[in-house]
């Protein structure tokens, strides 16, 4: 065995030690397996990535949004200037804000496609109704975040779109007036309006969004994606049974060292 081979086997041993250690203490490897390994039918596999696309775009929103906060100033006299600075002075400002802007636009399109896919494949039917409900809550949160983000630019476009949006809200029965005065922070549009939209866009709703995404993913994993056509739990049980049998066989072959913890594919194939 040459030196490279020795180093490689040492590295494999070390990584196994680390993963086994982590698995024993946190169960993270089993968890990752459960979250990442999904048996997917060959036919139309790309259409099942729309949910991941949505999640990816939301993550982009969080990341670029946090970056924009380093320069953005939520006051009526400086908001526009600070965005001008981001776009013209800060390095890669156009890129960061561009990603925030365009991924917000694509996000709504991705959500539409995602919902269409779930709807036309009947993915909302029992026992997955609640995940549809949680998804609709997520949709509404995203729409309000998009609306409040538009105002933060404080340019003519964003300002008048905000006026129109708030006035639409003011036609709601009984609470129209209170809703709009809550959003404006008084009885006229002004500094309080921008501060409130900033608070709602940057903290309130993203903080509300995160747990609902967690519930959405939990329910997804609880019921799987593929329904009767491709029963996930059944499939996973078969997989685990096969793995158990294989381990058992090899334990008998190796005759000795107890076989615990995670084994990767190389182990199972016996090609060490």
């Amino acid at each position, binding site marked *: 065995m040459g030196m490279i081979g020795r180093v490689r086997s040492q590295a494999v041993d070390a990584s196994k030690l680390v993963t086994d250690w982590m698995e024993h203490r946190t169960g993270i490897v089993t968890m990752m397996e459960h979250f990442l390994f999904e048996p997917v039918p060959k036919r139309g596999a790309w259409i099942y990535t729309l949910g991941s696309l949505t999640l990816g775009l939301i993550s982009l929103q969080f990341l670029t949004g946090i970056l924009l906060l380093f320069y953005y100033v939520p*006051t*009526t*006299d400086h908001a526009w200037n600070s965005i001008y600075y981001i776009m013209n002075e800060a390095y890669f400002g156009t890129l960061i804000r561009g990603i925030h802007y365009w991924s917000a636009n694509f996000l709504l399109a991705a959500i539409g496609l995602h919902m269409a896919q779930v709807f036309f494949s009947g993915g909302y039917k029992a026992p997955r109704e609640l995940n549809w409900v949680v998804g609709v809550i997520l949709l509404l949160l995203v729409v309000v975040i998009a609306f409040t983000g538009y105002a933060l630019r404080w340019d003519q476009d964003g300002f*008048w779109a905000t*006026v*129109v949006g*708030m*006035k*639409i809200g*003011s*036609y709601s029965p009984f609470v129209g*007036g*209170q809703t*709009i*005065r*809550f959003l*404006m*922070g*008084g*009885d*006229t*549009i*002004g*500094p*309080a*309006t921008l*501060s409130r939209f900033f608070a709602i866009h940057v903290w309130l709703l993203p903080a509300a969004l995160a747990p609902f995404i967690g519930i959405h993913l939990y329910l997804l994993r609880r019921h799987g994606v593929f329904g009767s056509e491709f029963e996930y739990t059944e499939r996973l049980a078969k997989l685990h049974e096969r793995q158990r049998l294989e381990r058992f066989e090899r334990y008998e072959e190796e005759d000795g060292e107890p076989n615990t913890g995670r084994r990767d594919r190389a182990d199972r194939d016996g090609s060490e």
Partner: protein
Amino acid sequence: MTRGDFLGFGVLGAIFGAIVTIPPVAFVLSPVIKTDALGQSDVPDDWFEVGPISEIPEGEPKNFVVEFPVNQIYSEEEIINNPEAVKTEGEVIPNAVWVSWKTEILEGGKLGKTQRPAFVGEGGSLSQEQIQEVTASLNVMSSSCAHLGCPVRWLVREGEGLFLCPCHGGLYGINGEYQGGPPPRGLYNYTFEVRENGMIYVKHEFDIEPGLNKQQPYVV
């Protein structure tokens, strides 16, 4: 659990619940409480100068811009005038005010006689009778469309003019009356007065036409 325990928990729960919820809710809703319950406004209850009546032409509205100060957060009057605080400019909310002479509308939408008093533009201060006559002949209108609040503009086509809202196509006549499109009513009118110097003054207040739509011009 005894009846006494139950009542005790209930009373304690109510007290602690109130202690935990009332401050944050009142904190966030304080502008709503101040405007709705206490009737306060973010714009001072003063008269603001619009412009001279002599500049208003016949058969066409004239646009003036009035900058109303806004008392919100760092733009609160107390903070701006406080000598100990860092000098800040107060925020203003500019309102575009459309002013026109009341005009008769003839059959087919043509403009008829204008109620422009003959003494307007002669100079000199106005008498009480003249002020009354001018006040009765003026439309002082908000540019904020009664539909969803976009600013309307005066558009002349083939000699006939109308106020047009750029957002959804609301149309109003020269007196601010509803002509077409989605708005539920005509343009909002300011509370205004005319003084001896021939100037118009407005308050940040608007009429609500009874029976049409109780909608306040929430955004202006």
